[in-house]
């Protein structure tokens, strides 16, 4: 019997990865390419969709070539993508009308404040399960329609198409101007502020509220199920699934049962807990989002704690301060000191998401004295990831009534042992990393493989999950960090207050 492989594309914030997995969920090939980050004005973050499309084709072709001589065949393609990043393109030419507005972009802040002041603004939270915040895709679409001359009229005539990154990629993969399929998966659609989270359809009242014409929107599809054939690769492959990257990680961690949760540590960090087929509304600052949907089955929901800046703070230490040469060296630098030296970093670069939803908050370093060295700053930067996780875990515990007993983690930052131990100590629970750190890609591969029968059901996927590492809380550190938590909370309040100044 020949082995069957699945190709996953993880279209992320900083790079695009193409990874081939075997049936046991083991990585067989990986190719990666970074794309440029454009910062045309303070607070604006853009990507060039054409560059991302080129990187997708390139890395996918490379990964396919890597396994060309292996004793197996690639039978499906799955896609995971950076969420909320918004692309608007011309149906006839296939060219984007503007660069993609990235999820970290804050230009819609004033627009969102205006919208929030409208008497009918309560509708948004009620229908979408989300906060009315500039973090989501809908306001970005509205911004493009307002800013680009003629865009609204062209969108109404159906000449412009829009979507999140998976939409853009699926349309191009399936032929682009030559019959490209214009769809979005339901997890991505659930992050636009335009979809009714219960019916999983575009909501006319929301489209009115945001001023977005229905004609430009993609069709909403299940996350697991064949969307079309990718013809733009060296070998044609069925596209068996697409999910937002965080939902893909939940899937890759095989959190299929209500109550199961994971947190992925990349550019930002995202704690998602499966709540089953029930939509659970948070009372503590989390959002309700679609976790996944298998074709022909009901939608599964999740509660989500979104943290905008974790790994990005390490990147900032590297690129903007030049304190380290590579992200991983932050651990080396942090280990030059024994503690944070009284220093706290609140990385509210573009406001704070869960559980605060303070769009105007700005970053700060609290507790500076002449004693503080770059080692303390490195430590405080890593600790910021741990403290922010504590904030969202606490909210999740309060919402679900079931305290987390262990945290499943994945993503690039999980190779940082100092951080993982801090996390175990600051949460007071074991932290567990699975055998595949590239869980986002694995989830996309699982979705696609399920759709074409590489795996029979989610039970088969669960058997692939194994623990690769575990960090256990040290009771003495747990007590010390409990005592220090109010300091962190105070620093967060200060960062919010700083942004509120008129």
């Amino acid at each position, binding site marked *: 019997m020949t082995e069957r492989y699945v190709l996953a594309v993880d279209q992320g914030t900083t790079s695009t990865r193409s990874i081939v997995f075997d049936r046991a969920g083991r990585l067989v090939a990986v190719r990666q390419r970074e794309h440029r980050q454009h910062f045309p004005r303070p607070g604006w973050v853009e990507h060039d969709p054409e560059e991302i499309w080129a990187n997708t084709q390139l890395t996918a072709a490379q990964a396919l070539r890597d396994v060309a001589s292996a004793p197996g065949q690639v039978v499906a393609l799955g896609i995971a993508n950076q969420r909320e990043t918004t692309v608007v393109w011309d149906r006839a030419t296939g060219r984007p009308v503007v660069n993609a507005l990235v999820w970290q972009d804050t230009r819609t802040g004033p627009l969102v404040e205006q919208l929030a002041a409208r008497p009918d603004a309560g509708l948004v939270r009620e229908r979408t399960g989300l906060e009315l915040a500039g973090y989501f895709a809908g306001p970005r679409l509205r911004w493009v329609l307002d800013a680009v001359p003629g865009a609204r009229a062209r969108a109404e005539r159906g000449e412009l198409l829009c979507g999140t990154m998976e939409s853009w990629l699926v349309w191009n993969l399936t032929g682009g101007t030559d019959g490209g399929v214009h769809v979005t998966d339901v997890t991505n659609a659930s992050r636009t502020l335009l979809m009714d989270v219960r019916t999983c359809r575009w909501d006319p009242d929301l489209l009115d509220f945001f001023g977005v014409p229905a004609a430009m929107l993609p069709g909403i599809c299940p996350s697991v199920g064949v969307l079309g054939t990718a013809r733009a690769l060296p070998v044609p492959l069925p596209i068996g699934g697409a999910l937002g990257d965080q939902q893909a990680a939940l899937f890759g961690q095989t959190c299929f049962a209500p109550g199961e949760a994971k947190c992925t540590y990349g550019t930002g960090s995202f704690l998602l807990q499966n709540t089953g087929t029930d939509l659970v509304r948070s009372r503590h600052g989390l959002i309700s989002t679609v976790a996944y949907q298998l074709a022909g089955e009901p939608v599964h929901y999740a509660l989500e704690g979104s943290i905008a800046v974790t790994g990005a703070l390490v990147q900032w230490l590297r690129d903007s301060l030049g304190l380290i040469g590579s992200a991983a060296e932050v651990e080396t630098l942090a280990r030059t000191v024994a503690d944070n030296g009284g220093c706290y970093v609140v990385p509210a670069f573009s406001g704070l998401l869960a559980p605060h939803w303070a769009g105007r908050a700005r970053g700060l370093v609290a507790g500076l004295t002449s004693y503080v060295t770059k080692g303390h700053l490195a430590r405080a930067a890593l600790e910021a990831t741990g403290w922010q996780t504590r904030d969202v875990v606490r909210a999740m515990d309060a919402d679900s009534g079931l305290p987390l007993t262990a945290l499943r983690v994945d993503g690039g930052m999980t*190779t940082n042992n100092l951080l993982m131990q801090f996390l175990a100590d600051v949460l007071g629970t074991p932290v567990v990393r699975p055998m*595949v750190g590239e869980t986002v890609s694995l989830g996309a591969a699982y979705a696609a493989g399920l759709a074409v029968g590489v795996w029979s059901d989610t039970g088969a996927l669960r058997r692939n999950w194994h623990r690769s590492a575990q960090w256990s809380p040290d009771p003495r550190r747990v007590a010390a960090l409990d005592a220090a938590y109010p300091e962190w909370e105070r620093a967060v309040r200060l960062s919010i207050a700083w942004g509120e100044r008129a």
Partner: protein
Amino acid sequence: MPGTVQSIERAATLLHAIVESGGQMGVTELAAAVGLPKTTTHGLLRTLLAVGFVEQDPRTGRYALGAGLLGLGSRYLDANELRSRASNWADSLAGRSGCAVRLGTPAGPQVVVVHHVFRPDDSPQELEVGALLPAHATAVGKVLLAGRPAMARALADGPLEALTARTVVDPAVLLAQLQAVRGRGWAEQRDEYRLGTGGIAAPVYGPGGLVVGALGISGPVERLFADTARPALRAMVVEAAAAVSRELAS
């Protein structure tokens, strides 16, 4: 200084003279500074130029330190960076082999574990990152000793501790093993560290071709060295280590 090679000594003196000048020096100046005839100095500089240890300003003809010299110091690879780059392939190796995986780097005459992936059976295991292993009794250690002669010399200075009755304690036997490891590109250890367990490891090369780490699996002897499993396990280890080397080169 008996036993030194005169031309190397002179070349070093020239390099020191350039450093002391704080910039560039002409050949006449250099010859005077080190007290050598100009022709000898010129010959030395030509060789240093060829290996990239000095550079010559095409306009003035004066000599400065070369990029090749600076490159020598940049072989240092941060251990956390190494873990981060190796992680995907270490995971994949554990999944494929069913064994625990360790990535080791030299720490004096010992091996420090910079990355550890649990045996994928979900049994309770302790993370061993930061632990020290004896180099002469482990497969990862033998790979490092084979690739790092200075480490081997440091070890050979002291007595080799017998951890089991099977530990290699005779330096001559160990050196012969290291020779073999260099030749075939992998190392094995069987009952030499703890009775009943063994290991297989292969070298990870840095971008400059230096052995910067050893990636290995370990497990029960009957599992690792069963006739049916052994060649496949070796191939997996060698392949995974090569994949990490490729990752470091990119």
